[in-house]
């Protein structure tokens, strides 16, 4: 890894427990760092809020998806039965709206669900199989039992030495710099 020219992505420290990383994140915010990310093996309550991430667009997009699905569903049924080829089926009215409800409902759910998932992935910038943090060897434990806090180099206050010192000050172990290969 040292052969290839590489640039600094940030500094990362490792923690034992959710509480520890939560505390550390608080301190980091107080220290004025903006671009911090925490990596945890399971969702830790309040962590996102602590590092300054509150609102997500997923619910809104889901709502739109649902509305879109439902409306297009009913529109399709109405158009097929009453406009495209109006024909007498068993004496039922052309616009048999009660009979159109099930499909409308199903398509609402389908639209909403698909949009929820896609938006979640897209907003998380997934798929992203390559990421600098993976360069850190111990980061493998992030999906098992360790909690990581990373201060990114794009942060205005970023300074390798200071950040490292700061992380140690909040009892982070194995503080390492995260390199991003060119």
């Amino acid at each position, binding site marked *: 890894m040292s052969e290839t020219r590489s640039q600094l992505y940030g500094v990362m420290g490792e923690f034992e427990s959710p509480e520890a990383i939560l505390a550390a994140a608080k301190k980091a915010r107080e220290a004025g760092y903006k671009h911090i990310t925490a990596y945890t093996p399971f969702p830790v309550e309040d962590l996102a809020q602590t590092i300054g991430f509150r609102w997500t667009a997923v619910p809104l997009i889901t709502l739109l998806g649902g509305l879109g699905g439902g409306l297009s569903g009913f529109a399709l049924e109405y158009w097929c039965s009453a406009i495209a080829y109006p*024909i*007498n*089926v*068993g*004496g*039922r*009215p052309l616009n048999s709206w009660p009979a159109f409800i099930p499909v409308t409902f199903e398509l609402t759910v389908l639209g909403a669900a698909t949009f929820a998932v896609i938006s979640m992935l897209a907003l998380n910038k997934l798929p992203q199989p390559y990421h600098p943090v993976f360069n850190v060897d111990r980061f493998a434990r992030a999906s098992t039992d360790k909690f990581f806090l990373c201060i990114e180099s794009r942060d205005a206050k970023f300074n390798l030495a200071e950040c490292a010192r700061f992380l140690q000050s909040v009892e982070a172990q194995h503080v390492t710099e995260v390199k991003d290969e060119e």
Partner: protein
Amino acid sequence: MLDVSSLTGDMSDHADDHELRILQGNTGQEGEHHHDEHGEEEPVDTTVREHALDLATVREKLRDKSGKQYWRTLEELAGNPHFDELLHREFPRHASEWDDAVDRRGFLKLMGASLALAGMAGCGMPDEKNIVPYVKQPDGMVLGRPRFYATAMPFVGDAIGVLVESHEGRPTKLEGNPDHPSSMGASSAIVQASILNLYDPDRSQTTRFAGEIQTWSSFLEAAQGLAAAAKSQNGAGFRILSGTIVSPTLGSQIKKLLTLFPEAKWHQWEPASGDGSREGAKLAFGRYVNTVLVPGKANVILSLDSDFLASAPGHIAYAKQFSRRRKLDSPSDTMSRLYVAEPTPTVTGSSADHRLPVRASDIELLARALAGKVGAGPAATLPAETEKWLSTVAQELQNERGASLVVAGEQQPAAVHALAHAINAALGNVGTTLYYTDPVETEPESNLESLRQLCADMGAGKVETLVILGGNPAYNAPHDFDFLEKLKKVHSSVHLSPYFDETSAYCNWHIPESHFLETWSDARAYDGTASIIQPLISPLYYTKSAHDVIAAFSDKPGVAPYDLVRGYWTDAMGHSEAAVEAGWKKWLNDGVIPNTKFPAITMTSKWSASSLPAFQAALAGQIEFIFRPDPAVYDGRFANNGWLQELPKPLTKITWDNAALVSPKYAEKMELEHKVMARGGEHGQVRSRVLDIELNSSKVTAASWTLPGQQEDTIVLPLGYGRTRAGYTGTDKGFNAYVVRTSNALWVATNGKVTSTDEGYSLACTQYHFNMEGRQLLSSASLAEYKKNPGFAHEGVEAPPKDDSLYQEFSYPGYAWGMAIDLNKCNGCSACVVACQSENNIPVVGKDQVMRGREMHWIRVDRYYAHAESKTNDPSTYNPSLDNPETFFQPVPCMQCENAPCEQVCPVGATVHSAEGLNDMVYNRCIGTRYCSNNCPYKVRRFNFLRFQDWETPQLKLMRNPEVTVRSRGVMEKCTYCVQRINNVRIDAEKQNRPIRDGEIVTACESACPSEAIVFGNANDPNSRVAKLKAQQRNYSILSELNARPRTTYLAAVRNTNTDLVKE
């Protein structure tokens, strides 16, 4: 084309095994058959490829090749371009049979058919379809427009006039000829099905000698030889055996021949139509006389075991006249009344207002007693119950003097007929409700005695040459005559028959008989009216008619039937060629020769009932076996007809089999239960006990069937089954009742022994459940009740009112097609079922599939017993209500519901409504979910569970109605009200910018119906017949509470019951 005949028959043998598989619904078997069968390599001389072929070379190549080798060679030849060309040259006729949708392969396959060269089916086909136009188009032919020709179908002492629908030279459908007395525009199941016989691939295709293929010319030589021999000894030892002959030409031909051979004899044998009527008339009047009924004029009819509405000469006309007297337009109308005394339920008995189960032998006693009561003979004593019944009838007959009618049954002995004549005379009915004419048949004689004498002569070795014109004596002669053994003593025998059957196998010469649609002839109807029979298609195979065969022995061999017929009528018209020339075209056009109807003759009785010997009543409780022709295959001659085999018999609803019919009481006594099987069940498969019947020192094993309404001690053995050489469809179906039939007990046999075995036999029964479970399906009442309460049909069901819907309803401003079926007229004869099958290309599926409940009939005739009960729903579990239940029939086509439940559930819109209210079925859109069928309350939809249609057999292709799509596997189908007919009529009407006239569109079922029970038309037009019927109070729709709004409605049945006979 003569020589080619030498190619064919042999192969037809091999073809037989395969061509008809499909008729059995045995799908997946077709196609490559001949390759499978004859696939192995054999050295074949291919020099034939070098030079152009003529048939001589072909024959050369094929001589002394047989079986597989034969086929290999043919396939080699088929590869040869010259051969192909030869086929075209030799069969230009077939080229003209195609409409323009044919491809080369299909064309060759057709050739293959006429040569039985099915081996060629494998030829590659170009991806583009070809158009094969005529070289010289026949005059007056317009491609795509069917033409109708009048001709007549000769059938046991009658000729039924038909109009033949012909598409580009292919007869595809028969309709009744309105101008013909014995049809009056209607037809019967047998008439409708006879077209299938024409295209039956199992038909015998060439002349044979000792089973080997021969040419017609070689037969001519042989015949002349035999004739010469006979001449030398004045015709002694020369015998002709024929059925009842109603063709004047053929009659005169035979008579001429007999003048050439004075010593020769002519015998006649019809197995299923009794001598009773013939001999009865002779007994009564001292000579043979033909009786013509006029049931239309009768107010009261008593049938003494006569099924005059469904069999015997004239029955179609009789049914028509009778039904017109059952017509009720309003409660004030009157109806005729029908009494029937019979041993086993028949179509006629089921339409009776009062029916009395009597054993066949007691009918005579009944007749004697009646004669006594009306003063036509000495009194006779009856059992109390019968006495009451008969005296009421006698009383009523006398009240209606001159307007009453007593009919004796075909299978009843001469005495009963003589008595009937006497009674009718005493009641002054002669001249009004019946009249007498000279015999219709050329040479009336007692068939039984005639055959007895022939067999005696044969036995005595007196018969040198025996010419059998049609018929199948080896199969259907009384077994004590031992016809077969005696036939072996005949030096040279000639058998003319449409199939290579049981008799052909034992005759030296076999001549394939032409279908009546293939040859010139003539025939007289039951009232003497003569018709010219004209060919609609030249013979598909190398077949000949009786005219040819007789001519072959005459001094002028090889005269064409056309010339013979022309010749006869020239003589008949006072030897004036001009007269014939003048009339001929009109005769052919009308289908009848004017003024040939026999005049009524007055007969004086030369006989008194008192001269009858004392009557021996059968011992009480003694089992009586009676023989009856089968309602479908008759005496067995239609055994290979898939349509008739699959036609549910009117009363038993059994298909593909006959069964020994027993009474419920007897069944209970013998513990002959019916077991409804899990597959198919009530609608398909019932397992019944097998009986061993020893009778007349012979033995037969038959499946039993319990028939409500059958006389207690009677067992019916239907004839016509158990054929051993009928063809693929008909062989080994049911049991052969002829085996236990002897000359001394031709119709009624006693002293038989019945042992019930412990084995069962599965019968394909399409409707087992016989009561209505208290549902409003078939509503009926007595005339009195009807007069009291004309709206009785609507009681106890509340149909939602029309404007009950939340939504705006569809309106049908244009035509609103509808159908009304008068249950008062329907007698269950099932002509409609076969007519529909023929019109709509409905496949035959075979017994196995019927047993799975998969028959394809678009219209079915339901049979219900009103008020009949049985705790197990099995008629074999006795209940008094089964002794003589009121029987009703209900034809059920698609109801064309306005609120069709089927349409709403189809996911792809394959069944939707047309703007004229038809419940359209779009086969090519259907994906086969069967949801529509599940949701159809009337269960009239039919599904192609497998590939039921035959796409291979070329003959069957010719038969198809090009106006109707041939459905394939996996799609639903159902009655369309014959939409093809609606469309064609509408198109013609629109071209003339006029509305469609009432009665202009006639559905297949309607036109076939002999009793005018079915009426189709525009319900929007208040003046249409259908609208008038629907306006009647009797009009109701099945299951109206479901609010499906069927367009097919029913007029409730009304029985003209006599209050004196109604049991309190």
